[in-house]
């Protein structure tokens, strides 16, 4: 009986038919691929995109600079007299070219001034544009989608 069943399966190419059945099941199913440039992906809250610094709350403690494994952050503190009253950095450079997006600087920041944004499209024509300074680091929160809850698909209140 068993041998007969095996023989029938062998002659009828049973296992190949089974495989064909599995693949043909998906012919009419909707596609799971994302049509990326046309349909924008909704990114989760914790996405590690381009680094974003809120210069206003930064106290130029240089913890991010020390935590960075690639050394792509450079913070210049203000002079001692200015530092007593105004702790904001004089210059803040991030070379996104070397950034690993590891999140160590975000971990180290005591004030939460540096954090990842949702921006992931960083391809540019001129590599020098990947060097961000104080003017280019913060970006317009209204334009970019910022901090979305992945599961509920709603913006997260800050």
């Amino acid at each position: 009986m068993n041998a007969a069943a095996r023989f029938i399966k062998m002659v009828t190419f049973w296992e190949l038919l089974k495989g064909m059945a599995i693949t043909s099941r998906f012919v009419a199913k909707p596609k799971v691929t994302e049509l990326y440039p046309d349909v924008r992906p909704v990114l989760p809250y914790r996405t590690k995109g381009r680094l974003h610094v809120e210069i206003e709350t930064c106290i130029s403690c240089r913890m991010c600079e020390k935590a960075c494994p690639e050394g792509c952050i450079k913070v210049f503190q203000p002079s001692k007299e200015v530092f007593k009253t105004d702790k904001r950095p004089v210059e803040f450079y991030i070379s996104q070219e070397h950034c690993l997006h590891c999140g160590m600087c975000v971990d180290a920041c005591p004030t939460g001034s540096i954090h990842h944004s949702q921006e992931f499209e960083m391809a540019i024509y001129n590599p020098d544009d990947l060097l961000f300074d104080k003017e280019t680091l913060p970006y317009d929160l209204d334009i970019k989608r910022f901090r979305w809850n992945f599961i509920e698909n709603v913006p997260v209140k800050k």
Partner: protein
Amino acid sequence: MSDEKEQPGSPAAPPAEQSPAEAQAKPAPPKPPAPKPAVPAGPKKWESTGEVAENGATAALKAKFGEAVAGVKSPCKEAVVMVPKAKLAEILSFLRDDAACSMDYLSDLTGAHFPVNDKKFEVAYHLYSLAHKHSLRVKVQLDDGESCPTATAVWPGADWMEREAHDLLGIVFEGHPDLKVILLPEEFEGHPLRKEFPLGGKQEEMIRSNKYGKPVYLPEDIEEARKIIEEHRHGS
């Protein structure tokens, strides 16, 4: 940890004790050498801290080889033994064949470079017994230029691991069937994992490649840094 290390470094201390009379006469000059002894004794030798751990394999080894096998301290209670180079081959095959040890699985073989130690290289064999489920690290110390007997006769799996250690650390394994480069290009000079081999980068400063791909380091001075960045922005 530092207490243990300062004891061998004490020879530098006696000169300060020899001249108490002078020290009273001239209080200022003898004082500077007094805090120094630990420092001029040379760079600290690397030595493991912690306790010596035992398991079935170390007991069997000590029963067979006695004093030749020395337990090594380990901060995380791993069984580690230091063996003399002359007896290494014998000990390794004993470890594999002995019923109490039966270290049939060579988990890892690697080396490390300690430029401050008397014997500059250490080779570590991480062994595991599939039957008894215990592990052991066997270490052997080598001088610069000294060769180590191969373990490929005991575990054929040591082949590539020894080639790798030879490649990156320059340890020569005597009797290895085919000791040639494995990870590095054939024309590569030097051994990258030796401590004197430079990495070719400094991580404290911001790295920024210029258009030729070479990293550019930003100085601490802000004006100079701004100048460099401006140059790069307009240069390319």
